[in-house]
């Protein structure tokens, strides 16, 4: 049918945000850890570059991705993977900075003790640093996930707005407003609201459990 069901649009939105967050997590963990523990020349530049996608207009980020994937001949433009790519880029800073802060709050002496007891760097990271930073990492991941749920500017450029394929909630709201169909747009707004509320409640719940 020409009008994609609300449930399908919501499912796609969730899928894009979840996949983007999962793809980002390992990279963000390593980069965040490095930024929290190491000092090196050009660190300020790396930190600035990491933050860039958050400061730039999402539309500009989207255009950069579109041009990059075209140049690399990656067939992801106008597919839902394009929406994932847009979400990955836009949410990257949130998760990296979240992880960096989470690791910065872990006292390095725990890691030093672990290393002195014979744990290698990978094991010390997995068994000491990561569990201690867990709450901050989770919070960063949730922040990235919720940001991805609402991503619009970059997604519209990279994925286009193809109903049933790349039309997420934010894109669907926009295309319905564009067509003057405010009622249908409002229905999607309500779905977005419900999704955001559930995500934030889950975040609060997880945080409280992490603290206990």
């Amino acid at each position, binding site marked *: 049918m020409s009008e*994609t069901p609300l449930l399908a649009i919501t499912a796609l939105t969730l899928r894009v945000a979840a996949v983007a967050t999962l793809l980002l997590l390992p990279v963000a963990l390593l980069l965040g850890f490095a930024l929290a523990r190491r000092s090196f020349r050009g660190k300020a530049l790396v930190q600035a570059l990491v933050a860039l996608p958050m400061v730039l207009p999402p539309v500009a980020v989207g255009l950069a991705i579109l041009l990059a994937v075209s140049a690399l001949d990656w067939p992801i433009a106008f597919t839902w993977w394009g929406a994932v790519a847009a979400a990955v880029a836009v949410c990257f800073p949130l998760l990296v900075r979240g992880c960096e802060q989470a690791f910065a709050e872990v006292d390095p002496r725990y890691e030093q003790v672990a290393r002195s007891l014979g744990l290698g760097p990978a094991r010390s990271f997995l068994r000491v640093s990561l569990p201690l930073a867990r709450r901050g990492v989770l919070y960063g991941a949730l922040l990235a996930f919720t940001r991805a749920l609402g991503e619009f500017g970059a997604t519209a450029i990279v994925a286009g707005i193809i109903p049933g394929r790349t039309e997420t909630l934010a894109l669907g709201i926009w295309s319905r407003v564009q067509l003057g*169909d405010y009622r249908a747009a409002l229905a999607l707004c309500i779905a977005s609201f419900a999704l955001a509320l559930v995500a934030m409640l889950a975040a609060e719940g997880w945080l409280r459990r992490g603290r206990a």
Partner: protein
Amino acid sequence: MRTLGILPLAWLALLQGARAEEVVASVAASLRAPSTEIVRRFEAEHPGAKLLLAFGASNELASQIEAGAPVEVFLAADEESVARLASKGLLLEGSVVPFAGNRLVVVRPDAAELRLAEPRDLVQPALRRLALPGWGVPLGHYAREWLARRGILADLADRIVVTANAPATLAAVELGQADAAIVYATDARVAKRARVAFDIPDAEQPRIRYLGALTHRAGPGARAFLDFVRGPGAAILEAAGFRAAP
């Protein structure tokens, strides 16, 4: 960590990717109302086929196709958008077919008290906002051409509220954001809180010609759909107020 429980959920969602024979069609926004019925009938007659329709202003849809959107069928409200794609070699040669025509009318909000019965009423100072899409959008082009021919485009220039496409132009009037608009007769028919102020005489009507075309991605489903639009679809379009292609 318990949070890893969301992993299987995410990958499960990934797996639902595979689908039936889908055809993506870019469709002029003014065709939105009859499209629902055309697609319903087409899918009933072609089990397994599934249409995904992206609506928008024809010029914008053409730009998306140029940018590489995976579109198989293009139903445009003008000839320019199609010609632009054809000149760039993006359409299947010989696939371009006219399938409908339309008319322009002037609409106003139901509640308004403005006297609006003939073209010169449009320039009265009490009419502060006229909704129209930009020049590039077919409706915006047709309407401005008519206003220019009537010699009132310059008077109205700074009162035009620029909308995105045909249905959005009607919506601007229905929501009271504009005192009047020039819209397609077919959109005016489905208006709920706006009505036709006056009709534009035949002699002054622009030539509005809807064209269908296939891109190089078009498969058998896309061909069948375009054939359907021209064949059985004609009756559905007629019932929605569309004219035969001029």
